[in-house]
């Protein structure tokens, strides 16, 4: 038993810290810390900084311009980034499509798309969910019908995150209605500029715009944009889901949020004293903190196992559930801590002498509402429980 990083891992951790302290622009980290919406330029700026260091695709094999990071290196990198309030890396190209192309793509597809992901030429988005197919993804109905060298695609995708910034989309589409629903799905790449594609923003609960509907009407897609064989899209989707497990527990974000919460509870006063001296509120912080500490260790256990066996095991679903619950509990306490000051919207409107919340917390309520999403997307916590139940009870 040894919970500490190896000397090599520690050295890498130091390296990441030094890099972040030197290269992460304060404008960006302040925006992240305050929960403000990032612009497309913000993301691109950060991606470019990372790419210059060769770390944007750090987990990619060296052959594709990456560093071939182990799961633990990847974890260290992401945790440090979160602690430093770096913008998150937009995952659709780097963590989703990239690995899919490496495993299922043709040589030509890899050569065309992988470099454009790293250098920022392409911004991908993900066309999975549909209005009628959320948790039950396999019931998707967007049709792709072969017409010579093209597929003609008709249908609708939804919850497409940051599609407003994207120029490309990878989609699950139905190419056959025979057999089980899973068997007729294909994985198709599209140019968002194609005629017949329309992106419409969806406004979210807290007022922001980060997801979209994508309408597909007689969109012509070259057959060369098919990834893998026709009707094998479900295998690819499952691979992607099983592969994309790093940062699933979001412990880096949560550790940073806990730190922010404690500062907030010291700054805010209730009953004439700092809120952190309130025994009930302090006990709640203590309770979240012990849960977070346990999630952090469970996360390390999963990483160690993945390093050995190559598979994350059922801990992945557990981490998704517990990691999101802890993160939401932290959002909840930050919102609560502000009392009446949490309610004004948008809080940035109140500045200077009239500012209501300590720096970094004006968006506490908005972040709380927005983060209700994390236990819904990427396979809701209910779906994760179904998966775990199958393993546990057969």
């Amino acid at each position, binding site marked *: 038993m040894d919970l500490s990083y190896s000397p090599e891992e520690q050295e890498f951790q130091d390296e990441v810290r030094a890099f972040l302290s030197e290269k992460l622009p304060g404008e960006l980290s302040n925006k992240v810390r305050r929960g403000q919406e990032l612009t497309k330029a913000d993301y691109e700026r950060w991606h470019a900084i990372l790419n210059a260091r060769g770390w944007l695709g750090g987990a990619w094999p060296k052959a594709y311009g990456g560093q071939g990071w182990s799961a633990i290196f990847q974890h260290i990198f992401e945790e440090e980034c979160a602690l430093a309030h770096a913008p998150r890396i937009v995952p659709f190209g780097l963590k989703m499509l990239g690995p899919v192309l490496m495993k299922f793509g043709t040589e030509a597809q890899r050569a065309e798309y992988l470099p454009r992901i790293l250098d920022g030429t392409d911004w991908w988005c993900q066309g999975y*969910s549909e209005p*009628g197919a*959320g*948790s*039950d993804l396999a*019931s998707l109905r967007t049709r792709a019908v072969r017409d010579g060298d093209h597929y003609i695609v008709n249908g609708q995708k*939804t*919850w497409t995150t940051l599609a407003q910034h994207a120029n490309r989309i990878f989609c699950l589409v139905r190419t056959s209605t025979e057999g089980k629903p899973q068997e007729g799905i294909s994985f198709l790449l599209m140019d968002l500029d194609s005629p017949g594609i329309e992106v419409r923003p*969806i*406004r*979210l*609960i*807290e*007022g922001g715009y980060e997801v979209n509907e994508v309408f597909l009407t007689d969109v012509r897609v070259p057959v060369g944009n098919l990834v893998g064989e026709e009707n094998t899209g479900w295998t690819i989707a499952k691979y992607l889901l099983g592969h994309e497990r790093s940062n699933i527990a979001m412990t880096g974000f949560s550790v940073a949020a806990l730190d922010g919460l404690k500062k907030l509870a010291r700054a805010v*006063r*209730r*009953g*004439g004293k700092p809120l952190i001296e*309130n025994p*009930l*509120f302090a006990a709640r912080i203590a309770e979240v903190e012990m849960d977070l500490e346990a999630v952090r260790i469970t996360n390390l256990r999963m990483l160690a196992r993945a390093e050995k066996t190559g598979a994350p095991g059922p801990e992945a679903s557990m981490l998704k559930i517990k990691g999101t619950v802890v993160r939401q509990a932290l959002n*909840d306490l930050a*919102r*609560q801590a*502000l*009392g*009446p*000051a*949490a*309610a*004004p*919207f948008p809080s940035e*409107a*109140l500045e200077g002498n*009239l500012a*209501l919340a300590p720096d970094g917390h004006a968006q506490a*309520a*908005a972040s*709380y*509402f927005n983060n*209700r*999403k994390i*236990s*819904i*997307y990427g396979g*809701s*916590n*209910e779906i994760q*429980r179904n998966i775990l139940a199958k393993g546990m009870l057969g």
Partner: protein
Amino acid sequence: MNFEMSDDRRMLADSLGRLLDDACGFEHRTKVAYEAPWHDPAMWSGLAELGLFHAFLSEDQGGFGGAGFDITCVFEPLGRALCPEPVLAQMMGLTLLATAGAETGPALDGTERLALAVDEPDAPWEPEAGSTEFRGGKVTGRKSVVYGGHVADRFLVAALADGKTALVSVAAGDASVTPYGMIDGGGASEVVFEEAPGEVLIADAGAAIADALDRGRLALAAEAVGAMDAALALFTDYLKTRKQFGRPIGTFQALQHRAVDLAIETEQARSIVIRAAAAMGTEAQGKAVAQAKALTGKIARLVAEETIQMQGGVAMTWEYPSSHYAKRLTMIDHQLGDAMFHTERLAKMV
């Protein structure tokens, strides 16, 4: 024992419900709730014409109500409709004017809009702990998140005067008012008084303010129950009709049991509000109101979180009313003391 609403109250609640159906439909409500001035004069007039504000005072005081159940029978429909108008501020203001024996006519007919300026940035929910002062006929200090302050004609201010908490009336024009909207809709304001001329309505106002706050808490608890009812109705409808894996999601037992728990808790909320309404004006008022505010606060958050989680993505969108109920149900706990604040008060009474 009788748990039926009186005919008078039922008539008022029904009329109010019909008015809100017309004047506060989802799209119109959302527009009013989120755009300056966060207030619809027509809706306000409609409420006033209904005689709504008269329900908050007793016949002695010039109204036709004034009991706990008069408050709850009004605020439940307001909660169901997510009405963003500052009725709460008007109600608490009227209570205090009546207690002070001051003129209530213009406020009763809605032509004068009142706001209670009590909370301060470092002393939320504790009027005694504020540092606003009244001296030589002038008020100096800052009041924060004043509900209804965005449209108020007059502020009723808690201020220290001669070592006591006094209630002072200040015309809105004499204060520096920064209005803003709220994340759950509707408006409030920051109010700064700099040597603002004020008139003392009650010199030793601790008890009067505490009573007005209790009435406000009861109103909010009832509003929460109304909003829960509406949120649950949307939610059960969704569970019955939305299909996943080839069947309505309401047939999945894990969701069923959680849905049932929400229904049970909503009945708990309804019961504790009835208890508090009945306790108004008795010795049990303070404890019963604290229980009602704490328990409804806790349950409101549960209903908000669970209805979002079980409905999934759609409940995260602005277009679907469920998200707006979730916001109101969550943020209602931030007004006049949250569940923890009142639980702590109750813990000292056990």
